């Protein structure tokens, strides 16, 4: 089957999709957007979290056919998404300009790149929560990070000054095996504080 939907503000189509394929599989293996992670493919770990029409979902539990005509934001589009929100206000959603995200052609050029030059990526514009994760040391292996970023960004969109209990509750669906979570809490607090200062 063919599925048409919007990913990070850009219309995409996927052909020859099997009925059983998950949104996660389509993003990772067909769209060349491997940012959403495949840690359990069972809805237990939150590594695959994306926003579907603004709502955080486990993309491993969403059948590809369910996203027909809908909008998906992945970690690859998070910086643009957050920027767009900052400029146009919360609830704006998606990327109306259509300028964000990775085009399918571009994505298809994505090749096996085992590890990359340690300096690449610097100077990239990041969303506040992405920057806070780096600054607070909340990234170790980083496999849980994309899902946590989507969940934490959505929390901060709803609640600009969450308590620790609020943060714990919002992130309780995202497993991390490396950090012990303390620095993830630090990162969310840091992003909230910076957001508060900026207002």
């Amino acid at each position: 089957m063919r599925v048409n939907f919007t990913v990070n503000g850009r219309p995409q189509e996927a052909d020859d999709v099997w009925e059983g394929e998950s949104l996660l599989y389509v993003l990772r293996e067909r769209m060349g957007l491997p940012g959403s992670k495949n840690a359990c493919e069972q809805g237990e770990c939150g590594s695959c979290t994306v926003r579907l029409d603004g709502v955080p979902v486990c993309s491993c539990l969403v059948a590809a056919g369910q996203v027909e005509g809908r909008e998906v934001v992945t970690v690859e589009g998070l910086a643009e998404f957050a920027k767009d929100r900052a400029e146009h206000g919360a609830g704006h959603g998606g990327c109306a300009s259509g300028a964000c995200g990775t085009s399918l052609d571009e994505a298809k050029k994505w090749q096996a790149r085992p590890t990359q030059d340690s300096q690449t990526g610097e100077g990239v514009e990041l969303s506040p929560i992405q920057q806070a994760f780096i600054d607070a040391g909340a990234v170790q292996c980083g496999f849980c990070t994309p899902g946590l970023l989507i969940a934490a960004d959505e929390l901060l969109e709803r609640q600009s000054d969450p308590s620790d209990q609020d943060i714990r509750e919002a992130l309780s669906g995202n497993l991390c095996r490396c950090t012990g979570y303390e620095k993830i809490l630090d990162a969310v607090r840091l992003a909230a504080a910076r957001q508060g200062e900026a207002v």
Partner: protein
Amino acid sequence: MAQNTRTVPAGTPTNVTQNHAKGGIGESTLRPDGTLKVTGEFAYSSDMWHEDMLWGQTLRSTVAHAEIVSIDISEAVAMSGVYAVLTYDDLPSEVKNYGLEIQDTPVLAHGKVRHHGEPVALVAADHPETARRAAAKIKIEYRELPVVTDEASALAPDAPLIHEGRDDHHSGHVPHPNIVHRQPIIRGDVAAARERADVIVEGEYVFGMQDQAFLGPESGLAVPAEDGGVDLYVATQWLHSDLKQIAPVLGLPEEKVRMTLSGVGGAFGGREDISMQIHACLLALRTGKPVKIVYNRFESFFGHVHRHPAKLHYEHGATKDGKLTHLKARIVLDGGAYASASPAVVGNASSLGAGPYVIDDVEIEAVALYTNNPPCGAMRGFGAVQACFAYEAQMDKLAAKLGMDPVEFRRMNAMEQGTVMPTGQVVDSPAPVAELLRRVKARPMPPERQWETAGEGADVRALPGGLSNTTHGEGVVRGVGYAVGIKNVGFSEGFDDYSTARVVLQVINGEPVAMVHTAMAEVGQGGVTVHAQIARTELGVTQVTIHPADTQVGSAGSTSASRQTYMTGGAVKNTCEAVREKVLEIGRRKNGSYHPAWATAELLLEGGKVVTDGGEVLATLADILEGEQPIDLELEFRHRPTVPFDLVTGQGDGHVQYTFAAHRAVVEVDTELGLVKVIELATAQDVGKALNMLSVVGQIQGGTTQGLGVAVMEEIIVDPKTAKVRNPSFTDYLIPTILDTPTIPVDVLELADPNAPYGLRGLGEAPTLSSTPAVLAAIRNATGLELNKTPVRPEALTGTL
């Protein structure tokens, strides 16, 4: 003030003060791969993609112990989209087994399966679902054999032998062929010491089977090459160890198997053994196409070894004034069907089995069994974890029996620098055991009844049971517990443990740039950050790039045993020092005649310049290196030698370095439902020297949380009758969420080890040791129950077992 004046060739001597390059050692430099990881661009092993690639799938045994009567692949082969189906008969070389120390693990089962989930056949197809369906179409007929699941069934007179006719280097000294390895440690005279004891306590402890449960599944991509070899991109802990095991099975020389590390989503010991590496290569070589294998979570639980479950019997004695008299211990580790790292785990469990205490008279015996349970091997803490669980419970029992404070009792018996270990090895660097305990105890306690909110009753989220709303505080009791542990760093027992680093220094666009190339597996621990910090410090440059880890450079050894910053960090440091010598040689040749200090002074590289120890600038690196070939050196680094433990007495200087951590756990228990909430897990650890405090604290918190997990929820459950795994999923194997994890305040000591690079101590494992017994002690303190098994389940707390 830093000066940038050019002083070459005939400049005026200039004073520089502390112009260290930004991001040197001791600074909390941020991860160089952080940006890629937060944008989703970092390529983990499961993200590999190649045009035209196929998907590999493993078919695994559904029974634990059986003869394979027949395998019928005809239906699978006939499916459209299927490119290859391989069984044991298709293996291309005479070498059909692999293993870390003992080559007892079949690439694909031949004749027999020895545990539930053992790989039997492989499929490559054009879609992962096709591959799965094809695998399901393979028909295997098993003739089931009786299963060996514990010590009694393994050592029974008519016990089936898991590996008949074994002839490895341990088989000659073990008392039974179903024992992988046995290590006694005997020192002093336990019988005589027991006479001096005023109190004696005994305990039987059971440590459950824990899983590493790293989030990034086993995965990788094998690409066949034109020269008949293969390129493998994979997540692992030790590229060269994999290579040594892969190449012979493929029938290829090592240089035709080129390995590159791809992004690793956590490891914790679970990637020390081969998982899908050989399978992917076999399929790629057979089909002539790139093959990607990605385990799902279910398969991941079968795809790697676990932490050895253990039964430990301990007897301690003490005098009435609180001095330990003796220890007699027996530690039985279940190694499962294949040896993996079992021999080394036995060595650690026995040699560290007395803990960080002074005990002159000791008899310890540790054994690892072959059974039909899932194979067990390396996991963070490696043998020391199980022992710590038992000896710390014993310390509390002794203190209680003597009417002493448990921390005071431990401090009275704490080892220190100069203490002789039960192996006879003298601890020759700081061992601040008493101080670590003092620090966790001195920390202010978290406030009582934190769930009580002003006016609104209880915030159930802070209570045991959380949002399940199971209590509003009634029946909730608090407890406090302490523990401390000792772990060795690096590979022990005479292993030739070395690491290699290549460093290239050159001028690019007028700026000195260093490149560090090692085969170190970055598994999240932050080695890439620290290597750049070391190079900046040693070479006085700002720009450092880290080359991807691959097998084109010498071995870096394993990212395990808390050794990587010590070993590969040490290799980077040494190689940088040699590069510095070359710089100075060139400098002397070019500029030596312009300033006498070139010949007479101690020279340093700082801020991109050559300076004297008095701070005088002699030249810039850019000028020295301009027009020269890049300085390109590759050197090996070794720690001081160790020796194997004597097989009868266990004596010998077997360890390189010791590392220590202490915990205080505060828990609240809902005694009605048996639910536990850990409120705080305060930690103190000596790290010798913190090269990057941000990473150090992160490692300690992560390790602490894994110890918490095994205390209250983590266990792979194996059916004792069938040896089948019952809970291979994140639905049923629970790891701590952010709601289960308390705040973890960390107190870091830096008492330098004079033998180690920068004085550092390996740190990754120690926090995993004492975290578990501290939580158990706190739950015992809250409930008054004995609790001798991990994890503590509700039924153990409510008496409904």
